[in-house]
């Protein structure tokens, strides 16, 4: 089995807020991330797929197809958007980096031709990332 990883970037804004909590509780738990005007990041997405090397092409997966799927399912939906306000899955889930990784997995699962999704890693900043590997 070979793992292959492709990277993409998107820029988006968000804030952390739990409607069940008071303003004070949100401020206390989420700090400056709770600012209701939002703030933004340059996110880096790493999608890793697993599969066997095709003896004819030498590829695990057609990179162009993987790029197109990531662009269509994720980047075109998230890039230059406010995640809380404009991306459906974050009307109910707080767009933490963990939840973004899970949401991207769900958007991509089963859509990469010829390969199995292995890992989704989302960098919010170069020093901070979240990873989801499907149900373990």
């Amino acid at each position, binding site marked *: 089995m070979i793992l292959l990883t492709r990277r993409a970037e998107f820029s988006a804004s968000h804030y*952390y807020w*739990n409607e*069940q909590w008071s303003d004070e509780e949100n401020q206390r*738990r989420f*700090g400056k991330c709770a600012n209701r005007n939002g703030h933004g990041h340059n996110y880096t997405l790493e999608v890793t797929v697993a599969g066997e090397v095709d003896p004819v092409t030498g590829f695990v997966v057609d990179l162009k197809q993987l790029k197109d799927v990531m662009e269509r399912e994720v980047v075109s939906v998230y890039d230059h958007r406010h995640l809380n306000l404009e991306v459906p899955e974050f009307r109910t*889930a*707080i*767009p*933490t*980096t*963990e*939840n973004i*990784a*899970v949401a991207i997995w769900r958007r991509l699962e089963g859509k990469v031709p010829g390969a199995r999704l292995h890992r989704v890693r989302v960098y919010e900043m*170069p*020093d*901070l*990332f*979240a*990873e*989801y*590997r499907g*149900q*373990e």
Partner: protein
Amino acid sequence: MKAYLGRKYRFSASHRLCSERLSDADNRAVYGKCANPNGHGHNYVVEVMVGGEIDPVTGMVCDLVELDTWVSREILEAFDHQNLNTLPAFANRVPTTENLCIEIQQRLRRAVRSELTLGVRVEETSNNFFEYSESAAQQERGLER
């Protein structure tokens, strides 16, 4: 739903690679310039990855402030701007980055909540890194049995 959260931290320290069980000539042969008697230093990068269930209320695996507190207390305060060879942890072990990685894993394990899995990756330079994870340790223990 289980996810993983990783964060990088940095500290600077000096060390000398030299085993008391080897002769000067053998130390020189094994460790090369790393055995230089006066030591040398690195800017270490420590990547800590914790894994666990995403809290449905906060959307988080682990509060970053909590993680920062653990790493500062157990790792950065202990190692930053120190000579690793002079620390108790390396009194009987050569402070290679392999051993440093294991020491960091053990120190953090004491602090990190037990329901979280823990992995540690230490970069000595941008070209060298060492990794230790509990799943790897479990596999090793499985092989021993």
